[in-house]
């Protein structure tokens, strides 16, 4: 997997003339290893295009006075606490403000629900679960509610993600959503990892910002576990 991603990264580096770096597995996800020996945690959701557009919608004042983030993420397996921490990090990124307090309720490792307050006063709810059947595509939803306008990565009157292509053959229904011509052929989750590594190489100041954000995310995960065990909100 890393070899394929690094081949794609090398293609982008060559095309756009950017410095050396390699994608490597880390403890909490993929990292970018730089020639000086440092390793930068990669935050692929920060370069994922739907979230980039949602951030533009907030920062460009298309939405005015954001009040609440309503996020959900359901997967086939994985760690619901880590998923929740990632969703909180995404909310913090979009809001431009860290999480100040959170309250969580968990059902073992299978599911957790969170209410969070950001330092700028905005509110967030996060729903996470890992009990989709093996092989099912992840299901998620990100809705941002403001005094002026609502934005979402899911279209109105739908519950599930849409695809670009629906193909019906004797083998049943197959769907495709291709999002990147330059990296065509890589699975979408790997595309965003490559794009994240490329972003850090093109913009070195992201290294410190993402390292700090990854540390916050770890604190969010610890707080999710603690809040559930104490049945109390946790200050961060």
């Amino acid at each position: 997997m890393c070899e394929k991603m690094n081949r794609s990264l090398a293609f982008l580096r060559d095309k756009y003339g950017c410095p050396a770096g390699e994608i490597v597995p880390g403890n909490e996800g993929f990292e970018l290893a730089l020639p000086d020996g440092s390793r930068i945690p990669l935050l692929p959701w920060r370069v994922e295009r739907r979230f980039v557009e949602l951030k533009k919608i907030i920062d460009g004042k298309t939405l005015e006075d954001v009040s609440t983030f309503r996020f959900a993420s359901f997967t086939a397996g994985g760690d619901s606490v880590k998923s929740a921490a990632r969703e909180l990090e995404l909310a913090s990124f979009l809001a431009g403000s860290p999480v100040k307090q959170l309250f969580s309720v968990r059902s073992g490792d299978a599911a957790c629900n969170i209410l969070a307050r950001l330092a700028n006063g905005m509110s967030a709810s996060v729903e996470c679960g890992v009990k989709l059947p093996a092989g099912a595509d992840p299901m998620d939803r990100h809705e941002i509610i403001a005094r002026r306008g609502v934005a979402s990565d899911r279209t109105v009157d739908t519950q599930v993600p849409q695809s670009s292509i629906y193909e019906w053959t004797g083998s049943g229904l197959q769907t495709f959503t291709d999002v990147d011509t330059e990296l065509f052929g890589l699975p979408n989750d790997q595309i965003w990892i490559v794009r994240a590594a490329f972003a850090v190489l093109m913009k070195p100041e992201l290294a410190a910002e993402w390292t700090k954000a990854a540390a916050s995310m770890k604190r969010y995960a610890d707080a999710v576990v603690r809040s559930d065990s104490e049945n109390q909100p946790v200050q961060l």
Partner: protein
Amino acid sequence: MKPVKIAMMGMTHGHTRKYYQTLIENQKLDWVASCAADEAAKEVYELYKTGVPCYLDPEKMLSEHPDIEAIVLASANEKHFEEMKFCAERGIHILSMKIPTFDMAEYDKMIEMVEKADIVCQIELEMHYNPVVKRLQQEIASGKLGKLLAVQATNITLSPVWAFPWQGSPEASYGKRVPLAPGDKRFRGGALCDHPHIFDLIRWLTGSDFDTVFAQVAPNLRRELEVEDMLMAAGKLKDGTAFLFDPSWSRLEERLKVPAPGWEVFPKRMEVNLTITGEKGMIQCDCFGPNVYHNGAPNDRYTVQYTYFDEWVGLIDEFVDCIRNHKQPKINLRWHKRTIECMNACYESIQSGKTARV
């Protein structure tokens, strides 16, 4: 590889602004100058603050930048012949907007000029560099659908005429003033002229060519226009594939002078969707979806915010590759000629009320 010294000319085409980011970011290009068709186009160009100097006289631009190797002709259709001649006479490579000309005698002269000058002339049909189209082509080529039987496709948008008035002028868009049909007060040059993509894609996806076409116009949504804004075309390819195309301006718009947020009235201002039926299966495809959505400023209307839209990156990559490695672009004048012939056949069918052979 030495970056290609590139310029833009005209600056009145609806796609002009889509090049700015790519021309600035692509390391294989050095965007050195622009030349606007008139003061008004120059004023709009300057709103985007590209930092690239803009001239009003192509000769002046070339005298200041004699090393220009290629020019993007971002102009009205009626200007293309003279601009291509200007480039060909100077050995400058050309990236032309999607309609070189509807005048087939002029079209043949373009081919002759380009081939004589041994320059690259690529036609801007950006759908070829769309990742969804790439997947669609791959799935069809895999044979999973079996032999294709039918294709339905939309290429529907808002009308750009308020920002780019030449697109509502029969002379500037179609090249001359030709009535649509006896008794019809409208002229050729509207929505059909803006939407060659689906005519091109079906040839590419099937490997076949047009046989016959029947087209009809509907009452205009915009009464003020003297060109058509609503039409449909149905026909057959030589391999028997049946098609139905909707190339209309069926999505209403705010009448902005410069495209900006809030341009659309209908939430999705541009759609290219295909339905493909084969002997063994079927595909439905949205080339510009899914996206993200909002109902915020400026008009508080539900709006599609296009999310995956980087066709110009691949298009420019191919153009540079063709220039540096002396290759023929996929969409060259000779390939594109049959697409233009089919679009002309649609107008002939509208005029006669009968099927037209392409």
